[in-house]
């Protein structure tokens, strides 16, 4: 499937449906094309299939957690360079450390950030990519 150049695609991988829906709605209203996944496995599939411009990734998920998905994705040719922002409620620093080691661009605590903040960050990361 061809990447859509004009409208960036964001993949949201989050098992909490209300959160996923809220974020999807917010980002969509701001002009992004959204893909949603409910767990790491689904997320991995979608990522490798659709090559989204940015992935918002939760850590604690059933079936396959975020870090595992990230590591598996990095093995892929495209996946190596995929842009990932971790969204989580964990304040466990070892998780943040590991995700940064695996190339996550950022690590945001959901309970502390508004969706506007997330949106700003998404735009910032994508504009960097565009350059």
């Amino acid at each position, binding site marked *: 499937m061809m990447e859509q150049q004009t409208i960036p695609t964001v993949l949201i991988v989050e098992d909490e449906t209300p959160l996923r829906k*809220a974020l999807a*709605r917010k980002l969509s209203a701001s002009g992004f094309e959204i893909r949603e996944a409910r767990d790491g496995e689904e997320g991995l599939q979608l990522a490798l299939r659709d090559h989204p411009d940015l992935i918002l990734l939760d850590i604690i998920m059933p079936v396959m957690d975020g870090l595992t998905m990230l590591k598996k994705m990095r093995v892929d040719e495209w996946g190596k360079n995929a842009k990932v922002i971790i969204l989580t*409620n*964990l304040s466990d620093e070892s998780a943040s450390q590991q995700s940064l080691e695996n190339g996550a661009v*950022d690590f945001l605590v*959901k309970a502390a950030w508004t969706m506007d903040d997330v949106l700003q960050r998404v735009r910032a990361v994508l504009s960097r990519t565009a350059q």
Partner: protein
Amino acid sequence: MSIRSKIITASAVIGVFQGIVLIGSVLLYAAQVTDRPIWEVSQILALFPGFSIASVLAPIVFASFVISVLLLIGYIHYVFLSPIDRYKIAAEKVKGGDIGDLVETDDDDELSVMVRSYVDAIKRLKTSYDQLSGSLHGQYAVLGHDAEILRLLVDHLPLGVFLQKEPDFEIMRMNERAAQLIGKNTLMRSGISSFCKLDSSPYPFEELPNVVVQKTKILETRSDIYFRYPDMRMAAFRMTSVPVLDANNRLLYVISTLLDITDMKEVEREKSDFVSLASHQLRTPISIINWYVELLNAPEDMEHLTEDQRGFITQIKESSARMSKLIDTLLNASRIELGTFKSEGTMFDIVQVADIAIRDTMALAHTKHQTIEKSYDLNTPLIYGEPKLGQVVMQNLLSNAVKYTGDGGLIKVGIESHEEDKSAHVYVEDNGIGIPDDESSRIFSRFYRATNARDVDSSGSGLGLSIVRSLLEKAGGKITFKKIETGGTRFDIILPFTCKNI
């Protein structure tokens, strides 16, 4: 018959014979001197004519003399020597410890009376001695029994107990439990502590409660200490030590107890873990509330809401923020209860850590229209240490700077690399409310919150700076602060390139 009457009688008898001796001697002498027949000298003797008085008198005189001498000797033996011999034998017997069959005498002369008194006294003494001996045995038996009970008590106490005595405070006694808990060898060697802290670092000997009490005589000192058994199992003990002082306040003994609290610590840890887990879980519904409130507040939707409804939404938002803060506090507290962070040394980039901390506080800074200026020496080497250390330090300082600085404030963050002391110097400076002079010595104390900080935010825990300082110092670093003349505070941290005590 008394000795006195015996002497008088004997004297009389001897006197009679001596009288004969005397008279006869006089008569013989008179006859000799006057050269007259004796019968003329003594008319009495005329009764015996025809006898040669001289020839009869002389032998009588001589015989009387001999008899009286014999009587004297016999008397002395009878009255004095014989009894004395008897009593001497008896005395020898008593000396030899045998007072069983003492010589009895019924005589009532002075010596016998005296001896009988002594014998009686000795017999009474023996009786008393026997009684005393018997009673003492009884006492010993009771004491021995009590001592036995006491020993049983101490040995079976479900608590380790040991005693150290002045002057050198070597361990004199330890009960079974103490020996079991830590092995006889461990405590016996003074100067060495085989105990450790929760993070497995050695527990300094001078900080052990029994040593502290020795040095300071403080009543009751206690500490939680850990012990690694040969099979690598970790046990936790609470050691409590008390001094025993004499009337002059001199230290006589130190008594210590060891209570196994391994189970209790396990429960504490489980509680802590539970609180941690629950707190994390609680963040999900809070996030949902926040984001849906945000959706409600979206400009395009807001027009359809009444004034009141917008007010309601604000309430929900604020309540959610309070919940969030509470959870942060719970999480911090439960981490602190554990007493330590996981000790994992890795290389981390302090620049990156600072950036992450800045991003985390960006939301609040943004709301307050504050600016954060960065000034990094990008050649700062990676730090070897616990990444958590860097994160906690930077997050704390930044969040304090943002929190305690007003709208439109400026926060500066700087990182410099210093080769001369092999460390990174980091500063966080704000132009906020500052720290009052009279409170500046206490801001690193646990739970201490400066009065002006309390005004800004009543719900802070007061733990942040104390954690930061203890973490830094443990790693071999340092934190200081100074007041900015124009208002605000600057915190300076020294973080060694290679942290200690990992």
